[in-house]
């Protein structure tokens, strides 16, 4: 199963990288969709149907919204900004090398701390958390919900769900405020 997850991870990385370097925005959005739908398969392999359902519908709706916004707002492709050639080629090459060196140093730093911190984690597939064991063993009788995930999300972890709903509410307010629909024009 880890091989399948690794394969899906490689596909997701390829989709994300293509989204970064795509020439026009539409193909970038479509290849971004690869990441989301590969994540659905990963959730199904890890036996999390609740997350998979949410991910597949949210991914579809967000792709529809992004593509419709893209189509109705702009048709211009990404333009490569030409590199300034005023100060000579050697200066630009030096700056480029500095960028690469900084990226390598930071990557090495992150890799070191990543390895150091993953050594302390339990092995893949083993969980040693006391709270989770309590939830799994007594969650159904305490909440009365057969679907444990919903029981945890809406009972034990109610605060988190309230936070998620508030985030969505804030996002809607932000979109409406940025578009300034109210007071812009009355008739339609």
């Amino acid at each position: 199963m880890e091989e399948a997850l690794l394969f899906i991870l490689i596909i997701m990385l390829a989709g994300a990288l293509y989204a970064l370097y795509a020439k026009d925005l539409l193909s970038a959005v479509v290849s971004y969709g690869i990441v989301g739908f590969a994540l659905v398969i990963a959730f199904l392999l890890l036996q999390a149907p609740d997350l998979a359902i949410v991910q597949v519908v949210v991914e579809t709706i967000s792709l529809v919204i992004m593509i419709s916004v893209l189509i109705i707002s702009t048709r211009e492709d990404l333009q490569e900004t030409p590199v300034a050639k005023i100060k000579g080629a050697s200066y630009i090459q030096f700056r480029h090398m500095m960028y690469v060196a900084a990226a390598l140093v930071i990557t090495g730093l992150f890799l070191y701390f990543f390895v150091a911190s993953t050594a302390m984690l339990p092995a893949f597939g083993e969980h040693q958390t006391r709270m989770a064991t309590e939830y799994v063993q007594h969650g159904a009788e305490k909440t009365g919900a057969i679907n444990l995930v919903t029981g945890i999300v809406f009972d034990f972890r109610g605060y988190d769900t309230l936070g998620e709903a508030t985030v969505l509410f804030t996002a809607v307010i932000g979109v409406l405020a940025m578009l300034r629909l109210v007071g812009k024009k009355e008739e339609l």
Partner: protein
Amino acid sequence: MNGMSLIVKKITQLMAGIIFLYGVYVMLHGHLTPGGGFAGGTIVAGSFILLIVANGIRVFGLHREEQLSSAVESIAILVFLLLATAGLLTGAMWFFQNYMPHGTPGNLVSAGLIPVYNLVVGTEVAAALLTIFLGFVIYKAED
């Protein structure tokens, strides 16, 4: 955007109601089967978005629709908050106290407040996604 062909419009009209009902089913059975408020709400929003995309943006009174969905969204999150706060008034007096009787696990009406939370959160998610979509669509239509 004047909508798609007649075939697409008719099929969409036939399918949208079924998709809506499936979303409500996923919401109501959140405590029994995989799914819940977030997934069901997104499916319900998807049925509305499907109708709008297929029929074109000039058919509906989108301004009124957008105000209505925005109001529904605000009311739904307010109800969610009030239901959670009502736990302070009863019994053990803590936030998100599940104070309704639990019933027998496995029935549709069981698990106390959890189906109510599912329904409210589903309404909130559906109205929120629909409001965002309508916001962009109206923004284009007013240009």
